[in-house]
């Protein structure tokens, strides 16, 4: 039996502890030990982005992070986006724009888009496409996803009482 290590971290704003083997990825622990199955395993090589989570506010592929590396850090998964029953504006926009079909890539897109909007509340379409290049979708196509992210950005800026910066492009 492999030695298991205790890991303490902040997961979706709550202090959390778990036991894991050093070889287990953060994705495996989230899904198999903590029952947070929103994050998906697509490629397991960091190419598809379906396992995207925030680690200290930066978007990472949780298949390329060992769970032990997350000790003492803040992790946000797609389960941490909604506020109780109230969906995050990105989630609402994805529904309104039909920005999903099978849904496997959706959690990763939502988390990556949140990371983008947290840093850049008023991205251009080009910026959205560039920043989300690490998330692959095999059915909806990217257009609706990009439109949903831009719409969510507008909603969030209006909610914050600003029209956004003047765009120089």
């Amino acid at each position, binding site marked *: 039996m492999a030695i298991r290590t205790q890991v303490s971290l902040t997961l979706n704003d709550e202090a959390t502890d778990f036991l894991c083997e*050093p070889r287990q990825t953060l994705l495996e622990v989230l899904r198999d030990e903590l029952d947070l199955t929103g994050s998906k395993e697509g490629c*397991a090589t960091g*190419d598809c982005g379906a396992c995207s989570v925030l680690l200290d506010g930066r978007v*990472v592929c949780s298949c390329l992070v060992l769970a032990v*590396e997350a000790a003492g850090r803040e992790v946000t998964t797609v389960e941490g986006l909604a506020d109780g029953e109230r969906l995050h504006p990105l989630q609402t926009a994805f529904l309104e724009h039909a920005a999903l079909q099978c849904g496997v890539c959706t959690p990763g897109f939502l988390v990556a888009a949140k990371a983008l909007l947290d840093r850049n509340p008023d991205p251009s379409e080009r910026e959205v496409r560039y920043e989300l290049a690490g998330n692959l979708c095999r059915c909806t196509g990217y257009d609706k996803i990009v439109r949903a992210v831009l719409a969510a950005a507008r909603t969030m800026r209006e909610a914050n009482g600003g029209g956004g910066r003047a765009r120089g492009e």
Partner: protein
Amino acid sequence: MHEIRYSAPATVPEAVALLAADGGAARVLAGGTDLLIQLRAGTCPARHLIDVKRITELARLEWDASGALHVGAAVPCWRLAEDRRARATFPGLVEAAALIGSTQIQSRATIAGNLCNGSPAADTTPALIALGAVCVAQGPRGSREIPCESFLLAPGRTALQPGELLTEVRVPAPAPRSADCYQRFTPRNEMDIAVVGVGASVMLGPDGRCTAARIALGAVAPTVLLAPDAAGVLVGTTLDDAALDRAAEAARAIARPISDMRAPADYRRELTGVLVRRVVAEAARRARGGK
């Protein structure tokens, strides 16, 4: 993935002691974006991972009094790409760092890891070589410096001795009227690996003539190549078309690319000349004060 032991030392001496004690079974874990894939694929036999991200000293991205940039071995690409002074001072290096993988990969992958992974197609390596950057390694017998162009010995093999840790990459202060540039060719705009990548830096005299240059070629040989002859033909010229042609020719002459799924060898050799021309011209434009 096979069973592994994980250590997260807080200091460089602790990390070096762990590396030295475990001989060939230990590997340094920084961003993990190459290493964890290799472990899962069974192509890396490491039994002990030494995570260097808890070492404060290795997380620093700092400028010293001379104007040199110190990039700690645990600094992820995004920190370099978002650093204003780095963008203004070493735009070519920042370009290279910002090209690696996706936003997700940028959050984790490090410049030092890009070097240590030892790929001949690594994007930051030609940019670092063009800038005359130096690798600082700490081992059981002290520290030593290795020029970036001597760091790679073969694909996946570096000059680090057993027990040695790459602690930082130091980029010397830029000379007046100098600038760098890095470009690569890929079939896709993002999330791809260089078919050919070229880094260059040029320095101009007060009369606008080139006084020094460095050119490095990626993905055209088993290791990233410094191209001294290509750089040498530029010195004394105004970096006009004829000079760029001669540099392109000299670079093509030392390229010894392979044919693989990305491109045939002939195509890579031709592309080497094209990119050398473009990259030197852009570095020159920047050195003349163009934004």
